């Protein structure tokens, strides 16, 4: 379990690191022979809201545990506010954390739960009272001070957990899937409250979730992880529009993966040539990453595939058979099987398509390839 000293880990802290809130430097965690987190490096700026996003088992919670001090890294170092805390005990770290289960103390009332961290810091009683009252009113818990935590609803428990974590004025606030235990409506409301809290406190926040919707709506930046490694670090819009690889493309939102093809320019028209299908034309400005001769896989969001209008023809229209309609209220996802390409989903506003293109009938689709994400075919 001893950290292997690498050059990276022993180099002096630079001024650039001192300006950042959290520096994760080539951190690694092995569980026996399995890798939990593989050489992750990440810099989080002061006041930033960063989300660790990935499927279960991707190492995001392990990474969070290492920042909190509950998991000892196999190698690497963690720097918070310029101080190396890799070997610091959890209780000396001044890092606030909200647990997935909230982990409120059942034998204490709301007030004592929130005051716990301040009592541990041996602050004067008057100051504790003032700070607790401030946190209580900030989290809209007025009147609940003497309630048992078991008597609270899920949303209230969530707010107590948040109040308890922020009242100690932590250097970093860690949120471990705090919304997953709430029902859908409450979750949406808590998302709003979380981002409001972040705006008010300006706390550097690291949020762990497997829910891409939460990640996209809350974060300044998202760290997508898979199998212990960072796949991409980017702002939500960037991540959605320019995923760095196939995993990110398919993990964030819905996306259609076209079979591998080749970028070509013929008669002045940029196109993607799919074997067995032929060329699909790009608009005047081709998608980013277009280079003649490049072997690529194109990924296309369902909103960039539309049913072609009657009689419409062109070099980016393919025809398939409707397999299913998934009606979602404001829009309908229609799944179409296209020979040589496979399953393509198209997203259309309203429900008209359910009647106009019944299951089993042919449907022509127009690809808006200008919005496609082009990744190396080897991906």
């Amino acid at each position: 379990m001893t950290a292997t000293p690498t050059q990276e880990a022993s180099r002096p802290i630079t001024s650039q690191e001192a300006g950042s809130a959290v520096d994760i430097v080539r951190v690694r965690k092995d569980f026996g022979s399995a890798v939990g987190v593989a050489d992750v490096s990440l810099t989080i700026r002061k006041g930033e809201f960063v989300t660790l996003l990935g499927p279960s088992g991707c190492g995001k919670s392990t990474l969070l545990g290492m920042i909190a001090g509950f998991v000892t890294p196999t190698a690497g170092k963690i720097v918070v506010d310029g101080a190396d805390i890799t070997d610091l005990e959890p209780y000396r770290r001044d890092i606030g954390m909200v647990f997935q289960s909230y982990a409120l103390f059942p034998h204490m009332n709301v007030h004592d739960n929130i005051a716990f961290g301040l009592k541990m810091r041996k602050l004067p009683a008057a100051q504790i009272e003032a700070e607790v009252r401030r946190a209580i009113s900030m989290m809209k818990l007025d009147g609940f001070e003497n309630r048992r935590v078991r008597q609270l609803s899920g949303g209230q428990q969530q707010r107590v957990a948040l109040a308890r974590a922020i009242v100690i004025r932590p250097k970093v606030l860690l949120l471990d899937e705090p919304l997953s235990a709430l029902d859908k409506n409450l979750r949406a409301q808590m998302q709003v409250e979380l981002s409001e809290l972040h705006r008010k406190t300006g706390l550097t926040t690291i949020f762990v979730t497997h829910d891409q919707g939460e990640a996209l709506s809350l974060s300044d930046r998202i760290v997508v992880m898979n199998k212990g490694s960072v796949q991409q670090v980017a702002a939500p819009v960037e991540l959605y529009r320019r995923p760095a690889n196939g995993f990110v493309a398919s993990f964030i939102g819905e996306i259609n993966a076209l079979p591998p093809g080749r970028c070509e320019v013929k008669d002045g028209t940029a196109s993607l040539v799919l074997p067995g299908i032929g060329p699909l034309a790009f608009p005047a400005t081709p998608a980013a990453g277009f280079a003649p001769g490049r072997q690529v896989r194109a990924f296309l969001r369902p909103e960039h595939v539309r049913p072609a209008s009657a009689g419409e023809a062109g070099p980016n229209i393919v025809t398939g058979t409707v397999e299913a309609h998934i009606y979602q209220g404001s829009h309908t996802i229609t799944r179409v099987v296209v020979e040589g390409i496979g399953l393509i989903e198209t997203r259309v506003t309203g429900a008209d398509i359910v009647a106009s293109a019944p299951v089993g009938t042919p449907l022509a689709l127009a690809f808006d390839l200008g919005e496609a994400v082009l990744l190396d075919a080897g991906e």
Partner: protein
Amino acid sequence: MLARRPFFITFLAPAVLTAVILAAAIFEVLQYSVREFIPGSLNVGGFTLANFAALNKPIYWWVLADTFFISLLTAIFSLLASYPVAYALVRAKKDWVRSALVSLSITPLFTGEIVRTFSWMLTLGTDGFINSMLRKLGVIDMPIQLMYTRFGVVVALVQFSMPVMIILLATAIAHVDRDCEKAAANLGASPSAVFWRITLPLTVPGILSGIVVVFAWTMSAFSTPQLIGGGKILMISNLAYLQGFSVLNLPFAATLSLVALVCALGSLALMKGVTSRIERRLAVN
């Protein structure tokens, strides 16, 4: 369920039989306690309350008080000795440490009370393990009196009650939410603060039930105080035995048994009241 599946009633038969026999035995004790003692005879005379009047002697009050005192000491020391073991048993990281602790703490349950008491006699005796040890080490010149003392009785009773105490405590410790301990550490509580402010309060229900069970159990202890106390330390069961089988005053032995029963039930009820109040205040359950 019983109404729809009448054959289940058959399964109740052993329990009902046991309960009936127990009730009959207690009734028999009850009726013996209000009979006249005829010296030199095992037969009893007519109705009398003299046995209960005879209770009002300092010696009997003293034995009763001593029984309470020994039971309380046993419960407290059993708790103190068992908590670390139970904690290690639940929290040990290595599997083999856990299984070793489980076997060490549970096996005494499978050796009889007499065997265990006899081992303690060998340990506590004038030439026993402790005394010869201390003498060889030069700590003492003369053997110290351990047998026939309250100390010796309590030590043996503590060891006797530890398996049950450990099981009850281990169950409680295993139920503590580890995230609560992590949250406390995260909020700045040192490992000892985590223990005193989180782990210990959350295991109070187990501590209370352990104390109640061991206390009630020790109240009725017989062979340990009989053999190690050797007549110098009398608990209420030993007194009843003495009256019944040495003096052959069966009515008075029955009265004493009844007193023991009432005291045990009374203190259980009292403790139940106290513990449920503590648990309500802590709101752990």
